[in-house]
């Protein structure tokens, strides 16, 4: 039964609109943020990134500050690319998926290194998606793609606005299907993202977010 064995076709591919947006666009960094339901959403995304992917990826989820985050380890087992926790002053390399650790804000510097900081939580979150995304936007400008997933608060909306302002590509998970709709909903209201896609659409698009 060949037809039943073709899951790729069941997944909506990359639409016309997305293809037009990507035409000639260079992406060097993809930043993905989420909160409530974010682990499940990333389980659907990170393993879909092919081993030959040339952009760098930074993922950030809200995790309790008092616990050591094991996210990088967890995803390293499932991903085709190496997955590690982002370390202070580490250079950002292509083809690696980084995760923000717990208890500290993560930023990206203009010289394409990571930095950590202990500033107060933003929207009760440390690491905060806004802080990471805003610094990514400052450092990468149009070479950045920001993806905001499911979440139950408003962190990330400012960050997505900043990415859009600086010419980056903005993609938000469709709140209709998100486990928690507040975070993607707020970003859609505030920054009019380029694309609002279900997770399956983001999964199909993600491997294309690199330099052609």
């Amino acid at each position: 039964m060949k037809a039943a064995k073709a899951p790729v076709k069941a997944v909506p591919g990359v639409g016309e609109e997305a293809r037009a947006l990507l035409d000639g666009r260079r992406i060097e960094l993809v930043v993905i943020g989420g909160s409530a339901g974010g682990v499940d959403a990333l389980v659907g995304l990170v393993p879909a990134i092919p081993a030959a992917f040339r952009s760098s990826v930074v993922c950030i989820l809200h995790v309790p500050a008092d616990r050591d985050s094991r996210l990088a380890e967890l995803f390293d087992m499932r991903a085709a690319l190496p997955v590690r926790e982002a370390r202070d002053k580490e250079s950002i390399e292509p083809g690696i998926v980084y995760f923000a650790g717990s208890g500290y804000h993560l930023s990206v510097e203009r010289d394409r290194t990571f930095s950590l900081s202990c500033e107060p939580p933003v929207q009760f979150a440390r690491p905060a998606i806004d802080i990471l995304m805003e610094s990514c936007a400052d450092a990468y400008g149009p070479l950045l793609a920001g993806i905001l997933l499911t979440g139950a608060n408003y962190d990330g909306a400012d960050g997505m606005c900043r990415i859009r302002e600086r010419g980056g590509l903005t993609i938000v998970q469709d709140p209709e299907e998100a486990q928690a709709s507040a975070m993607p909903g707020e970003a859609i209201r505030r920054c009019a993202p380029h694309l609002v896609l279900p997770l399956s659409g983001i999964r199909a698009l993600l491997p294309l977010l690199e330099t052609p």
Partner: protein
Amino acid sequence: MLPLNEPPDAFDIELKMLVEAVYLKYNYDFRDYTGASQKRRILVAMREMDCETVSSLQARVMHEPDGFAQLLQYLTIPVTEMFRDPEYWQAIREQVVPFLKTYPSLKMWIAGCSTGEEVYSLAILLQEEGLLERAIIYATDINPESLEAARRGVYGLDRMRLYTENYQKSGGKRAFSDYYTAAYDGALFDRALVENVTFADHSLATDSVFSETHFVSCRNVLIYFNRKLQDRVLGLFHESLCYRGFLGLGSKESIDFSSFANRFDSLARRERLFRKSAA
């Protein structure tokens, strides 16, 4: 929303000029601080000090008497707690103290002591290990208001629950409340703890080593510095530390990306305790 009316390039240029001006006029060197967090702090300062642009903030800082003192409070945000990361303090107790006990006298340096929470934590630990009387602690920071708070040693009573919990997890041997007197909404810490503490203004960016030390604790300070300044500071610590002296850093700080990576041995990897290498 933070004020972000300027195109980022103008903002960056003005920020650079502000930091340069502060250095020239006040000799506070923020030129090698990491960009992203410095930018956020300046944005907060602009908002709180009612300045539309970085250059108007610069005018305030240059020409108004307390402009710089105010800005300094935003540039050095004190975020700390007593016995923060209890496993760090436990590792000091278990892995560093046995060595410290072999010295007839001790010098310790808390670099970037902020409002002093770690100074009192260290003093409590040393007292319980019978080392406080033979120890001199240098507690240094660049922010005079923070140093003043550190000297006073009064912390919010609302913090005591967290501090007590941290203290207990860190291997504390007594009742935490033995160390402070509650008055109004403050907890005043026992003055005897800081009898041998020297609180001093010292800049890791511009000043040099002032003493030989056996142990340096510098936590969540290096993350605000770029690699160049991190190297300078690790150089100071290396110079200050005695043969095989001890260094403690913040729980996510590392020396891996520094030119001093090979000049310290890891003593407790997760707790970020190091020893100066023998060579």
